[in-house]
């Protein structure tokens, strides 16, 4: 079985701060990591490799430094790594990103494609389903478990707000995976050593099965018009008083607001 896993390098958003003067993101000193849901997806692929035997290929689109997460994937146990890197990809929104990924995947052999549900920098959850549509494949999102049947079908568990569904998918498909369901394995020491001897293939737009006009900024229907830091409302009153006084203050406020 051939499995392709789409991963993304993201800033660790829990570490991001806003420059209060310039109103911009401070990225300096913020570590770049493999997106958590993608890492969950990679773990699912590696579990399938352990169970059924498979070749696992990871693909990412990004700048040259995204090489780092591909090395990490090697150290976790993948067989092949491809970095889609080209100025023509720059400025892509989810549609153009999914189109480029699909254009790369079309040139590969695969039985299953796995992606993370969403990336922590954008939180859109759109690239997986949009890519599935470009490839004309069925999709299951919010996946928490997947098994392969002998006939090539997949039995997939999906977590909704109010239920867990078991679905059967006929043949090739795209699964988007929740990090919470798959605790990713650690890199092995030998894996880390070997990871730097392995080749990361770097592909430009010319290697893909795409119309170049649909890539990057040109191929992106959405545009960021403006961005700004989140405005918090004016802070209210804060009291540092005895517990008895605190209770009185709260009760009076609740009465004033007709909440009791």
């Amino acid at each position, binding site marked *: 079985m051939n499995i392709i896993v789409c991963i993304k390098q993201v800033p660790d958003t829990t570490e991001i701060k806003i420059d209060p003067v310039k109103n911009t993101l401070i990225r300096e000193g913020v570590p770049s990591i493999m997106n958590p849901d993608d890492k969950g997806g990679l773990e699912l692929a590696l579990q399938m490799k352990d169970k059924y035997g498979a070749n696992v290929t990871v693909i990412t689109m990004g700048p040259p430094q995204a090489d780092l997460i591909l090395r990490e994937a090697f150290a976790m146990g993948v067989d092949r790594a491809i970095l889609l890197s080209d100025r023509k990809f720059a400025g892509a929104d989810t549609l153009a990103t999914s189109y480029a990924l699909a254009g790369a995947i079309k040139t590969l052999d695969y039985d299953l494609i796995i992606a993370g549900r969403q990336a922590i920098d954008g*939180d859109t959850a*759109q690239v997986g389903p949009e890519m*599935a549509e470009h490839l004309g494949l069925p999709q299951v999102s919010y996946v928490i478990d997947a098994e392969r049947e002998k006939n090539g079908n997949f039995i997939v568990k999906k977590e*909704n707000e*109010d239920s867990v*569904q078991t679905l059967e998918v006929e043949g090739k498909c795209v699964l988007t995976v929740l990090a919470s369901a798959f605790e990713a394995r650690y890199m092995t020491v030998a894996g880390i050593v070997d990871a730097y001897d392995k080749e990361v293939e770097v592909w430009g737009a010319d290697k893909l099965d795409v119309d170049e006009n649909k890539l990057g900024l040109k191929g992106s*229907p959405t545009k960021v018009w403006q*961005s700004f830091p989140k405005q918090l409302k004016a802070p209210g009153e804060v009291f540092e008083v005895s517990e008895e006084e605190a209770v009185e203050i*709260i009760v009076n406020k609740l009465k004033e607001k007709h909440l*009791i």
Partner: protein
Amino acid sequence: MDIKDYKNVYVFAEQRGGMIQSVAYELLGKARDLADALGEKVVAMLLGHNVKDQAQSLIEMGADEVLVADCPELKDYLTEQYSQVVYQMITAGCPSIVLYGATTIGRDLAPRIASRLKTGLTADCTKLEIGIVEETGEKQFRSTRPAFGGNLMATILCPNTRPQMSTVRPGVMQKRVREAGRKGTITMFAPKFDTSKFKVKVIETKMNCKCADDIADAKILVSGGRGVHDKEGFNKLQALADVLGGMVSSSRAMVDAGIMDHCFQVGQTGKTVRPALYMACGISGAIQHLAGMEESDFIIAINKDKYAPIFSAADLGIVGDLHKIVPMLTERLKKEVEK
């Protein structure tokens, strides 16, 4: 077709088990504002099996027209079945804007449609508005959403393709007051299915929610974070919630610790709530948490750490020990109620 010829605001009226979901009504409320600003109509798309009787309810909540696709193939949500029908409705009607709930259904369906239509989609919007372009005086649809874990807000446009599509999380927009007997058009839509594309089937659905009531519907929430420590701590919050006639909710930390169930979680990876009163007890106020509750009408924070970011979002802040204050407040309120 020129993009100026695309008209009307469509809403995907999500139903589960035949029940129209609250988010559909919330979207209709917002769609009404947008359509009025544009001088266009609000059209709801209702897909399911034996659901057509509920179309009038969508009209009473703001729709001018309801497109109903009612057939056994649409009983359960399945990506391809629903995508085919919504795609056909959109290509037949040529709306300027389409809104979906940012639920596990909406976030599965909307990108599929966006990719099929080759148009733009903006996820998890917190604000949708019709602005005026300064240079030309033209009306413009603007979708604002958080990015980078809620640290930054971005306003997104979809200038050259139609429809312009957005998803909105449940609890973010407000429903209109129901207008009983409001008149509108109900149109039955007959989908043409390409069944060769149906590759996914449901084997089993297990309802798993441990909560009978939804925190998003509660008027008062007493919410606990790391400072609550354990189940016993939450019992104190529950006693307070009982006196106030509210519910208990939780921050992510207590869900990850296995103390509270995910369906009680407020925040970016939980639910968005806007109750009349939100009492944050022992919650530090990470930006991801604030994203889920900052629209509450009145926020009270109790926290030992006077530098906790929750105080910047609170209308009333108490620096102190919730384990003492919450039980005292509960006793005091019991007396208040007895009066």
